[in-house]
């Protein structure tokens, strides 16, 4: 009896308390984001060392910040832009990644090995290495300040990732399946589209979810290639349009941060397993 009790306490001390503490630390900024977004201004700006002050709750929650966000700013427009750009760049990247991944994993041609390595290297190129010349290229194509500047440049980091992930996925699908289909009279292309791609749907979904969140969250390219408020994405819009000069309207800023985070968090919550397998697969390949 006492052994069981002490075991339970051991579990509380060595597992639940540390994990609980870390989880609280991980989630606190989001809680703070939420509290701030619904707190009236006169309650928001109270110095931290004022006695008998509890900042963790608000007695009179308000929707004024959200109303401001959706009525006075272009936030709705930014949400729409971000969604369209994320969807289109994900679609382009999945299309390119599917074909290229299949070619490297399955088709026999002399350069398959080195090409796989090169895709991996491209995957490791951080956007910050190329953003200045890429800006010049975008301007050269006269794409500056249009959504196409982002739809076409996000695939630079999404295609290598999708290709890499799907390449690994195709290798887990038995070759015999396609060979059987070809014996039954299907062409190479038909075997690929009708047999292999449907089997790769879990992999495609993983790559798609991951690519979508990456492009939703992208900041640097959106900051540089887009200049007019109408064309901005959520991360850039919130950061640049809600800060006037040196004044931070924290209520509105946190409302914007919350509303910009909820869609990705929502989508993610439905596909956690796919997301995690993309995350771990992206590293191991």
């Amino acid at each position, binding site marked *: 009896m006492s052994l069981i009790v002490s075991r339970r306490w051991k579990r509380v001390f060595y597992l639940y308390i540390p994990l609980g503490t870390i989880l609280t630390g991980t989630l606190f900024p*989001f809680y703070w984001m939420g509290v701030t977004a619904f707190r009236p201004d006169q309650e928001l700006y109270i110095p931290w060392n004022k006695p008998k002050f509890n900042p963790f709750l608000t007695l009179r929650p308000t929707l004024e910040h959200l109303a401001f966000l959706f009525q006075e700013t272009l936030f709705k427009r930014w949400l729409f832009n971000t969604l369209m750009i994320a969807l289109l760049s994900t679609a382009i990247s999945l299309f390119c990644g599917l*074909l290229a991944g299949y070619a490297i994993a399955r088709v026999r041609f002399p350069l398959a090995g080195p090409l796989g390595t090169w895709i991996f290297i491209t995957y490791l*190129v951080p956007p910050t290495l*190329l953003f*200045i010349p*890429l800006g010049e*290229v975008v301007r050269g194509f006269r794409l500056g300040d249009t959504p196409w500047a982002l739809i076409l440049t996000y695939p630079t980091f999404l295609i290598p990732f999708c290709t890499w992930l799907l390449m690994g996925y195709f290798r887990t699908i038995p070759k015999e399946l396609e060979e059987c289909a070809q014996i039954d009279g299907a062409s190479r292309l038909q075997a690929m589209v009708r047999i292999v791609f449907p089997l790769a749907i879990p992999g495609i979904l993983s790559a798609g979810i991951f690519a979508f969140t990456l492009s939703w969250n992208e*900041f640097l390219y959106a900051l540089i290639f887009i200049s007019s408020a109408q064309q901005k994405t959520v991360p850039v819009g*919130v950061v640049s349009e809600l800060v006037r000069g040196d004044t931070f309207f924290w209520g509105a800023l946190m409302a914007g941060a919350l509303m910009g985070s909820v869609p990705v968090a929502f989508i993610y919550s439905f596909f956690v397993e796919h997301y995690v397998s993309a995350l771990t697969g992206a590293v191991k390949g």
Partner: protein
Amino acid sequence: MFRYREVTKRERQEWFFAFCLLSPALLMLLIFVLYPFLDGLWLSVLDKEVGHPGKFIGLKNFFKLWNDQIFRRTAQNTVLYTAAATILKLGLGMIVALLLNQLIKFKRIVRASMLLPWIVPTVLSALAWKWMFDPTFSVVNFFLYNLGITTKQISWLGGPVLSLTSVIIVNAWRGMPFFAITLLAGLQTINPTLYEAADIDGASGWQRFWYVTWPLLMPVTMVVVLFSVIMTFADFQLVYILTGGGPANSTHLFATYAYQIGIATGKISEGAAVSLAMFPFLFLIVVFQLWYIRREEEVKEEVKKKKR
């Protein structure tokens, strides 16, 4: 010795098929990765500015950077930032992975919420941190004050040392889940009989970790660390939001300094040179990573051969 043999019609068909499949991806990467990279190299030896086409000036931009105090500070910051944040993330991530691995109830929901900092747009969560670090309304100071740790106002983003520390903390907060989840996936592949064997041999908890878990996790750890080093070294968003490189240009990273010179000031060529200064280090990391992966594969092959 090469011996040319006749390429069969079937092989040629296969090559053509591969070429067709690869062309969309390669076309995109050639236009938007390779070409900008070469263009960046070319820009860095010009003196191009906004409204000034630029002419060839050789390596002058790089010499100028070498003598630039802010640039030197930036290089130091980037190395410090990368090292400190990576160690923090690895340590915390390992602890969280080990804890999560023991969890039985609520496993999925805890793991899913652990990953939130990694999912949410970084600039937006960084804004929340900036608000938490606000000099007059800081909730962090409220905590510390009410726990009796401090009575003074701590200006988290004020001084050069403290603000870099704050940015490192936020980076660790954001990147830790990535380590935790990937290491957890690695932990789950470890054969439990190894722990049973260690128990029979009378190993303590620490010994089990040091002699079983750590060496077996090494391949995963290496890959995650290298990935994270690249991302952290080239980080932009956190510094841009939290400090903007200030106070007095003391917390710049390569990426934010490149942005300030190349975009905000409009000295395109100098900015491109700052960006390219990251290249040697990134190149070394990538070469090391490729070497390590290849070596791992060779080891695996050998193990397979021995088993046969």
